[in-house]
């Protein structure tokens, strides 16, 4: 077996990969509301929060807590570092596919 490129363990988990793939589809600098992201991914709020915390710790996502009128609202965005990490990850996966 040939040694392939290393895969980013933060993104490699299926749930977080889906989170990052979704955020990467939005335009650069765009933020999505937490409930919309939760529905889009079909995850529970608790599950998504845990994954977002891990991504935030890695510097891949930015979580913005704000207000819409009087209602608290949370928005999530992919950071520039997160976007680059996702690009590197997909490049590594494509390389693995060529090697296999």
């Amino acid at each position, binding site marked *: 077996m040939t040694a392939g490129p290393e895969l980013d363990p933060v993104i490699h988990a299926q749930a977080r990969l*889906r989170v990052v*793939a979704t955020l990467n*589809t*939005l335009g650069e600098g*765009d*933020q*999505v509301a937490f409930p919309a992201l939760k529905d889009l991914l079909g995850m529970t709020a608790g599950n998504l929060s845990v994954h977002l915390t891990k991504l935030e710790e890695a510097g891949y996502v930015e979580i913005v807590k704000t207000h819409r009128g009087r209602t608290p609202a949370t928005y999530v965005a992919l950071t520039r570092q997160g976007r680059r990490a996702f690009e590197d990850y997909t490049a590594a996966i*494509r390389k693995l596919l060529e090697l296999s």
Partner: protein
Amino acid sequence: MVKDEDGPLGPAETLLLIEQQRAKTIWWLGGDPLLMYTTWGVTWLLGFGALFLYLGYGALTQATALLVLFGFMSAAMAILVITRWRIGGSVRGDSADRSRMYGFAWGLGLACTIALSIRLSRLLPPPEVSLVWAATSMTVVAILYIMGGLLYQDQPMMRLGLWVAVLNVIGTVSGPAPHALIMSFGAGGGFIVAGIVLHRRRRLSG
């Protein structure tokens, strides 16, 4: 503690997962083509169909025909605005700002059309009045679909705008009744087919 879901995926499955999630997000951002295109298709098929019945056969009064057309167009606009508003409320940033401006362009474009048509209606014979209303509103639709295609990098949207623009030119040159017929079957039929085909294609890829 949250598990990291299932076992590790192979490279091919991983790329498929990424593509599926991307397609799902694009669908969510842009709205279901069945809703976004087929709604307009039905609007024009029936609205311009009514206008053709008035112009070609005198089967309806002009007021009824224009009421049917603009009634359906208002309903289709409302669906478009509600869908965009739902998305706009969940996304903020540069692209949301661009979408808001694009929404204003629709409203203002159609307002200009209505103002111009009301002004010219007093000066023209009845069949030409129908053509002014129909051709100017479809000019705004064609231009804004082309602009929307460029804005959202959505090729089908841009092509549909070009299709309406070409039909609008041919119809306007041909006269009021042919314009209504071309718009009913060409633009209406085209948008219905496009909506169904794109809906099926996205379902298969998602």
